[in-house]
């Protein structure tokens, strides 16, 4: 299949693995920012092809993983109301809140629907005028434009029974939080290709300069990731710290300006709590005052919720690249995808779930 097979070609992959081995002289620790990249690395076994000097640590870019517990609790509270149709992307339904998950609400009769686009939720609102339709707006800059479009259209069309439960997060502040933490190990980043498709990569240039860290905008196929690693290590070995674009077939430096305009029209930058990490200033998006009427937290009076996270879970350290999943004592024993202690075990993009699914037994060899 075009745009897939050529990026999974075993011979090309081998060539790049050899090129990486040639260019690597010293030990380096790189972080892939996006959960989609983590998933591909573990699924295809990309890290097995790297020289032992190169360590990949897994970043915070899994929207399901970083959505705070209290927001899941808010979603559960809203979705349990008989007058509500609660719409969400599929993988949010299994994330545990304090007590239960959205699938359990559905089993109890809650009207919870998996949608593929927030505009589908808007359509459901239009077709069900006597119901309140709420969309769970989760994600990074990648999903923000479509969510902004849904609110914008609801406003333009006067659809009153639609609202968003917003938990949008932004990548650059999270990268800065990782780089400025005392335990940081990360020496170079593979930036998230799809986030940069929307936002471009100018906002990464000051980060690369300030922290002297190479940042390579990288795609999601095995060959993309190996190319990203190659470019990143080459910079490190040559003492450079620049922003480079590996994912040129999708990303331009300035990004998608129309999408950015839409985000700015509807959202404003707010402080946001990250599950397992805590609050990071200016790291999220919230609805602007003009669109506050579409804020589900206000509409259903759940804004003040707080919740505590499971104390045993080290997902915060995993999302910051300080620890790897199998270094957690609960991994695979008290914490499994069926009984997750934290969100990194829940989402298919979470590092713990990826390790459990593809690596849980150590004896995998050819």
């Amino acid at each position, binding site marked *: *299949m075009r745009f897939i097979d050529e990026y999974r070609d*075993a011979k090309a*992959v081998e060539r790049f693995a050899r090129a990486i081995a040639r260019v690597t002289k010293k030990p380096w620790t790189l972080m892939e920012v996006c959960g989609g990249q983590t998933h591909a690395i573990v699924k*295809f076994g990309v890290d097995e092809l790297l020289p032992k000097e190169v360590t990949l640590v897994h970043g915070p870019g899994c929207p399901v993983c970083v959505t705070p517990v209290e927001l899941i609790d808010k979603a559960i509270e809203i979705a349990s109301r008989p007058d509500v149709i609660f719409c969400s992307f599929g993988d949010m339904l299994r994330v545990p809140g304090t007590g239960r998950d959205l699938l359990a609400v*559905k089993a109890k009769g809650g009207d919870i629907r998996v949608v593929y686009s927030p505009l589908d939720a808007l359509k459901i609102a239009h077709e069900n005028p006597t119901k309140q339709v709420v969309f769970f707006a989760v994600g990074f800059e990648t*999903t923000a434009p479509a969510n902004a479009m849904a609110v914008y259209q609801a406003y333009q069309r006067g659809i009153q029974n639609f609202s968003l439960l917003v938990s949008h997060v932004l990548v650059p502040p999270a990268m800065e939080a990782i780089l400025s933490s005392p335990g940081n190990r990360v020496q170079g980043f593979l930036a998230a290709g799809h986030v940069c498709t929307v936002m471009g990569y100018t906002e990464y240039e000051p980060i690369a300069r300030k922290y002297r860290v190479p940042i390579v905008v990288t795609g999601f196929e095995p060959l993309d990731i190996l190319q990203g690693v190659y470019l990143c290590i080459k910079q490190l070995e040559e003492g450079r710290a620049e922003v480079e674009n590996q994912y040129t077939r999708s990303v331009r430096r300035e990004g998608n300006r129309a999408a950015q305009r839409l985000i700015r029209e509807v959202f404003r930058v707010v402080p946001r709590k990250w599950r397992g990490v805590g609050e990071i200033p200016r790291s999220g998006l919230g609805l602007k005052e003009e669109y506050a009427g579409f804020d589900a937290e206000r509409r259903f009076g759940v804004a003040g919720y707080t919740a505590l996270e499971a104390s045993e879970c080290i997902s915060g350290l995993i999302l910051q690249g300080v620890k790897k999943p199998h270094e957690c004592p609960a991994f695979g024993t008290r914490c499994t995808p*069926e009984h997750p202690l934290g969100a990194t075990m829940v989402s298919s993009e979470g590092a713990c779930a990826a390790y459990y*699914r593809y690596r849980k037994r150590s*004896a995998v060899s050819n």
Partner: protein
Amino acid sequence: MERTPDFTLSCPIPITDYPNVLLAHGGGGKLMHQLIEKMFVPVFQNPTLDQRHDGAVIDLGGVRLAFTTDSFVVHPLFFPGGDIGTLAVNGTVNDLAMCGARPLFLSAGFILEEGLPMETLWRIVQSMRRAADQARVQLVTGDTKVVDNGSGDGIFINTAGIGIVEHNTSIAPRHVRPGDVVLLTGDIGRHGIAIMAVREGLAFESTIESDSASLAGLVMGLLEAGIEIHCLRDLTRGGLASALVEIAEAARVRINIDENAIPLREDVQGACEILGLDPLYVANEGRFVAFVAPWDAERTLAIMRSSPLGAEASIVGGVTADFSGVVVLKSKIGASRIVDMLSGEQLPRIC
């Protein structure tokens, strides 16, 4: 008066986590297996049930009968490549065939929702008739119930089936052994994507048709040719991955498969990429895997490919001894990883 034992004391299901049945309990993954292993099997325990196969094989005075049942709750009722009626016949016929039996007789139980258009029922019954004719089975008994409007999804169908085992080979997961070759009769994931495309209103360039079909003819062909078959399993919910994991665990062997050898149509692959689904876990209704002795592998492949149902058949892997009960996949880029069973159905990803 006899007292009912305290459910919470006798039931090892973590009921504090799952006080209610979830959809995932029927998704063909780990939760469904937990439900079966921890609730149904201990309660009904007997040697035939312990075979853990698609159907039960019972010896009745020297005659070996295969017996199975399946229920069908598909939405939408009609989809490209089939409908609930074809599934209800082929599903039970295929379960019998996977026991190595020649399917003979079916029963059908209809649970109809008040208000179902009579014309819809007629179309379904007609396609059941055609599917039964093609599979050479007779529908010999049945039952009809009607539930209140709102208590059903139009129509639910249960079928049960009886077949006869006409050979001395025992075909079951526990007979899989090191050295066996694993063959797959065709492309994976087509039924699941066909249903999802209609259900979710997803439009692709071409219509993706379900692969729903009776597999009995092809299985009979293999048996008549004297192929040394150790195990057969049709791919349904949970897809190729779940079928192989179940067999690896039951036989306590390691199954190695090669991703490059697994047939996958481009349109199905494209749909899976867009939705963030792994085709290894997406349902089929007309494909099966065969575990055969190594000396019969090439002949099996030739017989499969001579049938329209197995035109794209392929050797996808083999069995080695290490008692681990794992499935290991060699990925497209040549690295190895474990193939695990999912908890429930796959859910489309955010981005």
